[in-house]
């Protein structure tokens, strides 16, 4: 990590700080704390962060050779097992970093938004671990489809505030958390859950997440003697992607694939202002949302569209500005996988490898299934999270479809559970 770009709020034309005036002093204070503690390791901040990531978080996570998939695709497939991180997803890297930073900054209260509930869970865990009061905003739709995570947040002592406006997903939850922050900014830190939002969030979150690629790169060289030909990660806001790519960006021989949610279709319903996907890198246009200029799903007037994905964590109309920039530069290839293919990949990874992935993660494997011929001889896929949180959704969505690979779920009907 270098300090030379710490003060530059932009990635090419993307990024910036488009926030209400009340928040500007707080994000300036944060930019200063980011430079001092994260980039310059003042007061040993990074040492403490790394130590807690190891002892509390369980790092390093393994890079596992996937026997069955490797055979199936005739390609060496390595799984970076972020699902084994404490909490069950890569989200803890960032949440722990930010809650610890808030503590160093003397803040008294933590707020966060969450979509899939993984970031909310990670933040609630980090806040409990570091003894900070914590409130999480979560859209109603997401509360309904991610109940296990809602309970986990509550069990860790966090308040969960339902957000009812709009479609009740991540976009609305972020707006609502920004409103809270604008009111309480003097004592509160907003732990944003991805590489989105105003500077310095996109850089800071990337740096906290880059431990994934730092380990994966070393582990891959150790195991294979070489760098991989390709690295795959699913992209919602893009923290998983940026964390998995960061240390490979300068390795120009390694192809980087950001796998977005193609949802049910890439076509947009202009009339209703709805995009039945969350593929902002593949199909979005440039605009300003939640504090940054980036690629967005928006209508001709600039109103933000409701997005869709089978996976709550990818269901967002925007994407991190750095990722948008790397795509424009041609360094990252944006691809997308629809709901059906993701669900199929969920079952395949579960059956073939005994790894039950998050539905977000399943998108990356869905891409591999369709494109294993194009990705070279060695590929690293980030398993961004485990799928326990998604089981209710998977049962429901599987029962709606005719999937050859899916297990027979009629057992539930026989015993009268009806899938719930």
């Amino acid at each position: 990590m270098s300090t030379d770009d710490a003060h530059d709020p932009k990635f090419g034309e993307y990024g910036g700080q488009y926030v209400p005036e009340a928040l500007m002093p707080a994000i300036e204070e944060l930019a200063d704390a980011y430079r001092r503690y994260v980039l310059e390791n003042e007061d040993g901040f990074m040492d403490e962060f790394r130590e807690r990531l190891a002892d509390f978080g369980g790092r390093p996570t393994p890079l596992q050779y996937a026997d069955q998939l490797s055979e199936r695709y005739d390609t060496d497939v390595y799984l970076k097992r972020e699902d084994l991180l404490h909490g069950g997803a890569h989200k803890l890297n960032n949440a722990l970093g930010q809650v610890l930073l808030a503590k160093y900054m003397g803040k008294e209260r933590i707020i966060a938004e969450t979509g899939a509930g993984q970031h909310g869970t990670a933040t609630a865990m980090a806040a409990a671990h570091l003894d900070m009061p914590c409130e999480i905003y979560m859209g109603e739709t997401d509360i309904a489809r991610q109940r296990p995570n809602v309970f986990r947040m509550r069990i860790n002592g966090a308040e969960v505030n339902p957000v009812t406006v709009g479609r009740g997903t991540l976009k609305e939850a972020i707006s609502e958390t920004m409103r809270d922050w604008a009111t309480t900014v003097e004592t509160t830190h907003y732990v944003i859950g991805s590489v989105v939002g105003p500077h310095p969030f996109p850089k800071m979150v990337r740096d906290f997440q880059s431990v994934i690629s730092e380990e994966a790169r070393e582990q891959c060289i150790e195991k294979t003697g070489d760098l991989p030909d390709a690295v795959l990660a699913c992209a919602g806001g893009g923290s998983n992607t940026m964390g998995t790519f960061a240390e490979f960006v300068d390795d120009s021989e390694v192809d980087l694939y950001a796998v977005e949610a193609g949802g049910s279709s890439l076509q947009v319903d202009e009339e209703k202002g709805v995009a039945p996907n969350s593929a902002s890198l593949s199909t979005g246009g440039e605009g300003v949302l939640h504090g940054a200029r980036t690629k967005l799903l928006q209508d001709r007037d600039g109103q933000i569209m409701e997005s869709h994905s089978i996976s709550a964590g990818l269901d967002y109309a925007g994407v991190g500005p750095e990722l948008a920039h790397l795509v424009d530069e041609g360094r990252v290839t944006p691809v997308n996988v629809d709901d059906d293919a993701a669900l199929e990949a969920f079952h395949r990874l579960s059956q073939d490898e005994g790894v039950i992935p998050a539905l977000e993660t399943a998108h990356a494997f869905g891409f591999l299934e369709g494109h294993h011929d194009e990705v070279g001889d060695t590929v690293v896929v980030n398993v961004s999270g485990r799928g326990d949180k998604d089981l209710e959704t998977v049962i429901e969505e599987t029962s709606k479809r005719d999937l050859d690979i899916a297990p027979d779920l009629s057992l539930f009907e026989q015993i009268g559970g009806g899938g719930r």
Partner: protein
Amino acid sequence: MSLEAAFADEPAFVPYLAAGDPTYGASLEYVEALARGGADVIELGLPFSEPIAEGKTIQDAIVRSLEAGMTPARFFEFVEDLDVDVPVVCMTYYNLIYQYGAEEGPGPFVERAAEVGIEGFVVPDLPAEEAGPLREACDEFGLDLVFIVAPTTRGERLETMMDQVSGYVYVQARLGVTGARDDVDDATEESLARLADWDVPKAVGFGIKTGEHAERIVSAGADGVIVGSALVDIVAEGHESGAPVDDVADELEAKARDLKEGALRGAQERPQPERT
């Protein structure tokens, strides 16, 4: 009339409504009623789908307006259809300004705004640091750009804003998002003191609800009061109870008069400046 001129003789009453809330036709009548009630400048909201600086009252208004079909193009028609003789300021979020027209950037939006007679902009998600392109477009087409000073704004940031602001400065009375409150925050007086030597009018907003609030704010040194949620509440209640548009308009006019009179009383209570 220019924005500054609207503040010149007496304290200004600056109401906000979301254009098109709850319908295009009713909304025209409501804005006109505010002008009859004594508005000196009208802040007219062009609804954006992600209003991060707005509290629940105005968020709901924005949803009603969008559902009734408001768009930037309709907004400009709305301003043309308005029969008022006070300056209109467009309050919206940057993405709508940026996306308008075929060519990239704020130019086409500002040009169209100038054509329909809009005098200036308030853009809550555009801090002075990011406002360069909009400021330039405003200069080109002769419009003002109002900035919001928050209770947390200090030091260098204040200076940057002072260099860019024109028309009036929007003094945010307290931290947080828009919404009517029952009290007036001390932060107002501190903010006004920090801006004492700025040579643009100072209008205070966020949370003002009654004539008494307006009176206190103006007596504390403000050149005007901005009132949004307390007026939007009247529109919302009228909409929910199915009240006739004329009745709601009358109520808005009476409320406007109450607020304007409060502001005028506040001016009389102010220590008179020494004549030189």
